[in-house]
């Protein structure tokens, strides 16, 4: 194999599984370390740099970081990264002084954002400190988009949501509530103001329908996201006793749990397939079942049963699934079953809808009526018009919307300076030794055997009484202290300097996870067969050094299971191995990798590294 180029910021980035898995590349290990030191404000700000809404995301994030977490590969359970984010948010001090200062002298550029969800808010967050004037059009009477209308308050308290949205609005957003944009043409033509760039962050607002017999014969059949929105805005505050929720994604979970709180006594979630195919996050499914929602699998709906104009039940095929030769699942119908109910909520997915965008203004759509949006620049086929969040490629989640917002803001900034938007600013990195003494490191390097801490929940009776009681209580101090020690410090990299190595084998011998091998070089597949321990996870890289000075063999490290304990570096007589903290420097609009807004005052998050 070729020697690994660790000067490429992406090599060490990939070692930090959580950061690599996070769409916004949040520096997870460092914020966990800051929490461990009681520096909650700094931990919050470090989060905010990349994910903008730590308090909201600390409760609602889809957490792609957690399945990626290396700890899972060692003791089966990831570090509770998301819950720790919430700890930072709950315990932070006042951060207003740490937010970027907004220049009074504007740069003369005006940007319009359609929709006030996380994507648009991120665009505003990134552009306002650069002197842009940002206007957000929102059709509702409150900002926040889906974060308001579709995430129930028992998961996300309104105060948390409002506070983090206000940080951005207070930077000087020109927010136009109750102002739907009904024509892109009009927006482009200056009928609503003059814009240098337009960002569409209007989400995927159309819930999928189920066109089967009886669909339009009752008032008591709802589209999930519309129904949640009505509840959020107070238009609906009751539901009948017996509720069927069709679908088993996260929206279905929010629907069934909401129903349990506003009158539902017998709430069933109806799934077409079996459990292993459920789309809901496992923890949300778990919470719903804890609240006595019944989940029925392998029920495929065929018709609504209407008697005398009243919805009385729903008819399902009872099915089994078999994998066909093409790998696709085929159903076998075993019979049918009518399940009585008073109300049905359809939560079978959602999609984008752009009835307000004219089709003859240079914005092209594909065969599924989705706009063509460039994956890197977020620009559509009309110059100066950008898409992000669910509006770009359909439903994702908040953290993706934030990352889209960052990228779109970079494009808009380039565009407004007449720079090519395809030239993406490069990432950087910073690498600093954590050596304190001969065998001492300035990070918590010992492996802690603690198991993942369980979230405490409000008592069942209490939480079902009211829609606004937040279910999760957050970690207490002891849980926090236990959980932070589970983090494996994957950002503290094992950094190797080839010409210092005397090939004494000390590192190879001491490594508790048998990550290291000194051997003659070979091609990857063959080399993987000669490692100190079998390579179980081929998705993880092998580090390969230059030829070693004494024997011309190479040092090979399988990154997969390294626990970053630093023992290789402790046992190294020549400091060929060193433990160096890696910091991925991420570029944002108007800020090169590693740069910060010049007038930002106070303590800088992560500055104590």
């Amino acid at each position, binding site marked *: 194999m070729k020697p690994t180029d660790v000067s490429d910021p992406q090599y060490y980035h990939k070692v930090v599984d959580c950061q690599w898995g996070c769409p916004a590349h949040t520096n997870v290990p460092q914020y966990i370390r800051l929490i461990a030191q009681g520096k909650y404000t700094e931990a919050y700000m470090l989060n905010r740099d990349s994910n903008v809404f730590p308090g909201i995301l600390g409760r609602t994030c889809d957490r792609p970081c957690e399945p990626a977490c290396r700890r899972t590969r060692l003791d089966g359970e990831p570090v509770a990264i998301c819950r720790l984010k919430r700890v930072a948010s709950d315990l932070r001090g006042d951060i207003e002084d740490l937010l970027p200062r907004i220049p009074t002298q504007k740069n003369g550029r005006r940007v319009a954002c359609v929709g006030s969800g996380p994507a648009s808010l991120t665009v505003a967050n990134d552009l306002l400190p650069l002197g842009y004037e940002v206007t957000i059009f929102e059709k509702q009477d409150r900002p926040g988009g889906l974060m308001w209308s579709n995430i129930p308050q028992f998961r996300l308290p309104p105060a948390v949501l409002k506070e983090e949205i206000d940080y951005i609005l207070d930077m000087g957003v020109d927010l136009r509530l109750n102002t739907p944009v009904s024509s892109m043409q009009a927006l482009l033509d200056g009928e609503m103001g003059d814009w240098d760039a337009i960002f569409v962050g209007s989400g995927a607002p159309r819930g999928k329908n189920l066109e089967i017999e009886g669909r339009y014969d009752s008032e008591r059949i709802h589209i999930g996201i519309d129904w949640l929105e009505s509840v959020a805005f107070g238009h609906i505050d009751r539901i009948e006793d017996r509720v069927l929720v069709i679908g088993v994604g996260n929206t279905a979970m929010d629907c069934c749990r909401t129903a349990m709180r506003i009158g539902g006594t017998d709430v069933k979630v109806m799934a077409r397939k079996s459990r292993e195919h459920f789309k809901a996050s496992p923890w949300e499914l778990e919470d719903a079942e804890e609240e006595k929602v019944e989940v029925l699998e392998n029920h495929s709906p065929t018709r609504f049963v209407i008697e005398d104009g009243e919805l009385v039940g729903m008819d399902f095929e009872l099915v089994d699934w078999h994998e066909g030769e093409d790998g696709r699942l085929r159903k076998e119908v075993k019979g049918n079953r009518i399940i009585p109910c008073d109300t049905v909520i359809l939560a079978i997915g959602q999609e984008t809808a752009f009835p307000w965008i004219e089709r003859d203004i240079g914005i092209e759509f594909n065969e599924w009526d989705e706009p063509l949006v460039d994956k890197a620049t977020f620009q559509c086929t009309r110059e100066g018009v950008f898409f992000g969040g669910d509006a770009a490629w359909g439903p994702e989640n908040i953290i993706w919307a934030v990352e889209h917002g960052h990228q779109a803001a970079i494009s808009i900034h380039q565009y407004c300076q007449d720079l090519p938007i395809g030239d993406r600013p490069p990432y950087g990195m910073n690498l600093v030794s954590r050596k304190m003494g001969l065998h001492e490191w300035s990070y918590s390097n010992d*492996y802690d055997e603690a198991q993942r801490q369980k979230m405490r929940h409000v008592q069942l009776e209490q939480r079902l009484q009211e829609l606004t009681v937040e279910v999760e209580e957050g970690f207490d101090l002891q849980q926090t202290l236990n959980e932070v020690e589970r983090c494996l410090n994957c950002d503290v990299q094992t950094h190797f300097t080839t010409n210092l190595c005397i090939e004494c084998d000390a590192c190879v011998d001491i490594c508790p996870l048998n990550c290291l091998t000194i051997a003659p070089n070979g091609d990857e597949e063959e080399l993987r067969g000669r490692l100190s321990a079998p390579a179980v996870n081929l998705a993880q890289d092998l580090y390969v050094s230059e030829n070693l000075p004494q024997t011309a063999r190479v040092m090979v490290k399988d990154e997969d*299971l390294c626990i970053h*304990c630093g023992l290789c570096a402790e046992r190294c007589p020549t400091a060929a191995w060193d433990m160096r903290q890696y910091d991925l420097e991420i570029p944002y609009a108007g800020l090169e990798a590693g740069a910060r807004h010049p007038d930002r005052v106070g303590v800088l998050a992560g500055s104590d590294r």
Partner: protein
Amino acid sequence: MSWIAKPRIAHPGLPKNALGLTRRDYEGGMSTLCAGCGHDSITAAIIEAFYGLNLPPHRIVKLSGIGCSGKTPTYFLSQAHGFNGVHGRMPAIATGAVGANRELTYVGISGDGDSLSIGLGQLAHAIRRNVDLLYVIENNGVYGLTKGQFSASADVGSKAKKGAENLQPPIDPVLLGLSLGATFVARSFSGDKEQLVPLLQAGVRHRGFALIDVVSPCVTFNDHEGSTKSYIYTREHLTEVTDADFVERMPEIRASYQPGEAIDVRLHDGGMLRLRKVAEGFDPTDRDRAYAYISEGLRDGEVLTGLLHVDESALEMHSVSGTVETPLVDLPFEDLCPGSDALDALQQGFR
């Protein structure tokens, strides 16, 4: 010295041996030797060797004298029996232990000072008695523990850390072993586990005294320029005269060799030692020719490694002395201590 102990968490894919144990089950406590000490690599090789031999750790006895080398048994096989004896006196203790219980497996760890300076007389007699013991000399040319004075294995002209030159001729443990009639003599290097592990395994299986001299650089006091026991010097002067594969009790051996390319040595317990790539003009089963070959190599400054002599036909201590098969600990008290009448009868016989 490390600040933290080696975490217990292990690679989930670690292979298991016939006893269902992984290598980690053969480890000991955390080493307190200098980082990079050759002795630690030998420890790792010993762990690998015993793991590979499928021996239950609690049926092993580890013994040592004094020195950095003398400390190392703490760092492997924490479930084994251990005895840390007086400087240079481990061979006598081992002789007693082996005499008392022949069902255990014995490994003695010594240093060049421990074996060739203060303990030379002890070593000589353990060889002569052919005690059934794997005897490893962790040879770094200095007294590591007492801060790097030349030992009896230091080469003429080798320089100490501060520049002083050694003028006294060395005692070479391999030539010493050959001249005293050792039945298993090998040399290896701490930095070459591929060679060392099978040699250790063969040494354990050899019935009798198995002497392995392992060049084991002292990074702190003897790894500088001018040293003849440094990592780099050893690598530059090392010549492998035989390449041993230890084949555990295998009726058939897979690889086939041209005659002359390999020599097979059948061990007493049915195990097989296959020596590949034997240097031309060298025959490890011929003691006299091996002696001549090695002393010539030494004169030329070569570090000849591999299995240098083996003789499976010689009698070990128990056979010579006709000792009882049963370990003393398992003998009924009446047999072990037959009483004063039996003693009287015995003494009568000497009258």
